[in-house]
């Protein structure tokens, strides 16, 4: 992206979002969260705290979990981004999404996309997590409805169903 220091104009930048190459006209300091929501109309990632405490804006960048509210978009130029919209295969929900439904892991739904992305990241790195591993993997995601137990149970259930969760 060619942006001179004297120039505050938007620049063109490409990134692969949920497997699809996308090109956006953005300010380099725009937050990845805002680019996803406002430019690409992917509103699954939510803004909770806006300061990296609540995890509701969690997405994957090249497979790594990040808080998209803390990522200037220039730093993810050319990267692969996965949001909650990218987990289901057509109408078929992912194993984690199904487990969240079955276990009552979602209530108001604000934290759910972030919870599921954190859980997906955890299960990719550690397919057979202990309950402590699950708690640690989701420790950066706050929920004010469920009391967490249903969420932890959903992740454990998805992990029992093997890879691809």
């Amino acid at each position, binding site marked *: 992206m060619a942006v001179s220091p004297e120039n505050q104009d938007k620049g063109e930048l490409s990134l692969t979002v949920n497997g699809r190459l996308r090109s956006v006209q953005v300010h380099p300091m725009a937050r990845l969260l805002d680019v996803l929501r406002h430019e690409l109309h992917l509103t699954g990632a939510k803004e909770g705290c806006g*300061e990296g405490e609540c*995890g509701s804006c969690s997405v994957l960048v090249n497979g790594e*979990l*990040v808080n998209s509210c803390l990522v*200037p978009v220039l*730093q993810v130029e050319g990267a692969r981004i996965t949001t909650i919209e990218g987990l289901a295969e057509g109408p078929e929900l992912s194993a984690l999404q199904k487990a969240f439904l079955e276990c009552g892991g979602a209530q108001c739904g604000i934290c759910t996309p972030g919870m599921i992305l954190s859980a997906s990241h955890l299960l990719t790195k550690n397919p057979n997590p202990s309950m402590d591993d699950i708690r640690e*993997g989701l420790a*950066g995601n706050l929920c004010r409805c469920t009391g967490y137990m249903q969420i932890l149970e959903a992740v454990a259930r998805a992990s029992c169903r093997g890879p691809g969760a």
Partner: protein
Amino acid sequence: MRCDPADYHLIAPGKLEAVVSLLANEPGQWLPIAGGTDVMVQFAAGRLASRKLVSIWNLPEMQGVETLPDEIRIGAGSTYSELRGQVVIASEFPLLTSAARWTGGIANQNRGTLGGNIVNASPAADSLPVLLAYEAELVLVSLRGKRRVPYLGFHTGYKTMLLERDELVQTICLRRGFSGYVHYARKVGARNAQAISKVCMAALGRLRGGVIEDVRIALGSVAPVPLRLTELERVLQGKPVEPKLVAQAREMAAAAIEPIDDIRSTAKYRSAVASNLVGEFLEQLRDKGNAA
């Protein structure tokens, strides 16, 4: 969000030389941004004074951990997740592994960097007492060249440090050879996950012939800077760990710190906890310190 990204410049030159040239040519004008876990919080809150930012995220010259016979060299751009995954750190510098695990949740550990934590200079950062305990040295780089400085004394006051305006922290060096030591790390916060410390402590020690041969004690969140208790260490040196000495150490620790009341805790509580942690460490040193 209380700011407009249109008001800010961000560039990513991609090479260290280009970044230090920029810092040299326009000193004080450009704010380096690595993983953004501190800078982007200030940005979104509308409190980021600097309008020009230069990305140092993923700069190859600031990545990776190099293991040499006598020391390890940690690229300042290493994230906490990367530090947690390093076997040499887990086996020889376990206090750093603990601090990395305690710093934020996984998403922040994937972006927060050790160099970033040093220059952000929060007195509550969990990794900084660890660097004091291991007597880290920092390699600072600028267009003028490199210089190596001890981390002890790097912070001169609240968020002030011995870093020139054209310099970056490039590498953190830790001398090897702590295998015979008792390693102690403890974080006291409101909850286990994501909490910023009310008090944190990192300490190392070794006994020989029943007396303390070497000891380092460092505390966070109890003063404007991460604090090493050198006076106390001198008093402990060469003595057996006896109840009277522990009592004296607890008093000296409380006297050495300058805790404050803030949103996370009170000066009184911090003082009591700091004393307790020093006492707990010395008891562990007494019980385990002769094993090596």
